[in-house]
């Protein structure tokens, strides 16, 4: 538990935590996100799509790392597609990149505290926030181990800890379950649902099952465009027995993709 400030309990003055209209983002010369419309509010949103669908580029643009090439992007009610000040929005963001580097001689605690400091948290709140984030991802026993001594799954969890350390209103996780064992994946789903109660969480993943189990909303993209947005049940309803896949959700996923490809051709 932690104390909530009045600023946190104040009602939001924006309709959508994430609002993209006709968003285009370049990855190198290639237009990886091409005219995407997206509206997200609180809850856990699963971002699905085949390889090269533009998921990672979209995540980077939402994390304000990449500047959109066109369209409008509004995060927490503030436009971030132009050259305006990003500090206020960035304080409310948490981001776990797909492949993230770290400073190998930092310990987990130092890493999380350093990231909290970069996120401009009040100095006095940093040690407690870092400890809480480390506990939430189950790395307490390794808190004072150096980052370079951790296994892949532990590094991933340290990455999740730094993303949630500032209690972000928008949490972006790019492939967070890679390298986690089945038990940790279950814990991670609980954590997601917990955070999704009052924040907007966007999780990109390849695993359709993760989305059905842990997400309140599914976002399916292909070739930089939005294909489908709806609840997991709606995703399942799109599939029938003839579609490829081992589970109802997978059949819904492949049916939607097949229809989108047929429509685009």
């Amino acid at each position, binding site marked *: 538990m932690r104390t909530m400030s009045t600023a946190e309990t104040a009602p939001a003055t924006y309709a959508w935590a994430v609002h993209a209209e006709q968003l285009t983002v370049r990855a*190198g010369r290639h237009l990886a996100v091409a005219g995407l419309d997206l509206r997200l509010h609180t809850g856990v949103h699963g971002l699905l799509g085949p390889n090269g669908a533009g998921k990672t580029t979209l995540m980077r643009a939402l994390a304000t790392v990449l500047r959109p090439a066109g369209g409008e992007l509004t995060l927490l009610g503030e436009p971030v597609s132009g050259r305006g000040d990003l500090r206020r929005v960035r304080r409310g963001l948490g981001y776990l990149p797909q492949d993230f580097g770290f400073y190998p001689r930092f310990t987990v605690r130092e890493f999380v505290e350093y990231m909290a400091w970069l996120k401009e948290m009040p100095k006095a709140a940093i040690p407690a926030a870092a400890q809480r984030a480390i506990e939430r991802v189950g790395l307490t026993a390794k808190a004072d181990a150096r980052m370079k001594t951790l296994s892949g799954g532990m590094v991933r969890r340290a990455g999740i800890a730094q993303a949630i350390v500032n209690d972000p209103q928008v949490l972006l996780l790019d492939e967070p379950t890679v390298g986690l064992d089945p038990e940790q994946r279950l814990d991670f789903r609980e954590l997601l649902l917990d955070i999704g109660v009052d924040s907007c969480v966007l999780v990109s993943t390849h695993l359709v099952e993760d989305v059905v189990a842990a997400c309140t909303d599914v976002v399916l993209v292909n070739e930089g465009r939005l294909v489908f947005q709806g609840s997991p049940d709606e995703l399942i309803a799109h599939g029938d027995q003839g579609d490829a896949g081992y589970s109802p959700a997978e059949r819904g996923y492949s049916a939607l993709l097949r229809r989108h490809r047929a429509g685009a051709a």
Partner: protein
Amino acid sequence: MSMHPDLAVLARYADGDPGLDEASVWSVESHLEACADCRAQLAGHVPEDTRALLDLVTAGIDRGIGAGPPPVPRRRIWSAVSRRWLAVTLAPWLTMTAAVLGCAALLHAVNPELPSLVLLLAPVAPLPGVAVSWNRRTDPAWELVAGTPAAGLGMLLRRTAVVLAVVIPLLTLAGARTGAPLALLLTPCLAFTAASIALGALIGVRRAAAGLAAVWALAVVVPSLATAELPVVLHPGGAAVWAVAAVAMAGFAVARADLFRRLTSGN
């Protein structure tokens, strides 16, 4: 602070008297939160069974503290500060800079007729460090850091300050050895640092630093070594011009701080 409550009211509050109305209870409680004297008074009025309960709780908490994990030792402030200032591995680059300046000073000692290499290299000495300080290739956590509010010109300047804190003493030392005037050593060095940041706003700091170093080497260092004469830009009296250039470049960089908010692919 509100008025101290009446002693009789305090005693009734301590007893849990149901006759005390809610408004009084609230006012007593809000006063107690702020007033140590009244809390001490209250402790004196606490009935025997409550006191026994409190003792039990105290003993329980003490046991819990004794059995629980020890608190994390408070780390020295130095460790957090050094992590914040020296996150990026600059050591190899700075070592290289120091080695080059050492060689330049040595060369000057061996062959004093040639124009001082220390003086010729001083402007570009900080550039390798500046180029790697905020960069996709040398900062492993760039993608994490680039999305934080602290990313931007402030972070670049902080890391540049670390480079200058090493390079400037080195230059001063080398200058004292070779007798080069200090102002002519340091003002071009600061001007080039500021210029690489200012130009970096437009094309990326890494490219800017590489470009400036190449231009300086081709336009000034090579000709002056070939003719064995000190170039006109490094004659005494040029220091003021260099200082003005440094201030102007720094001014431009600060005025266009918005260009540094994202780490462009040029970095």
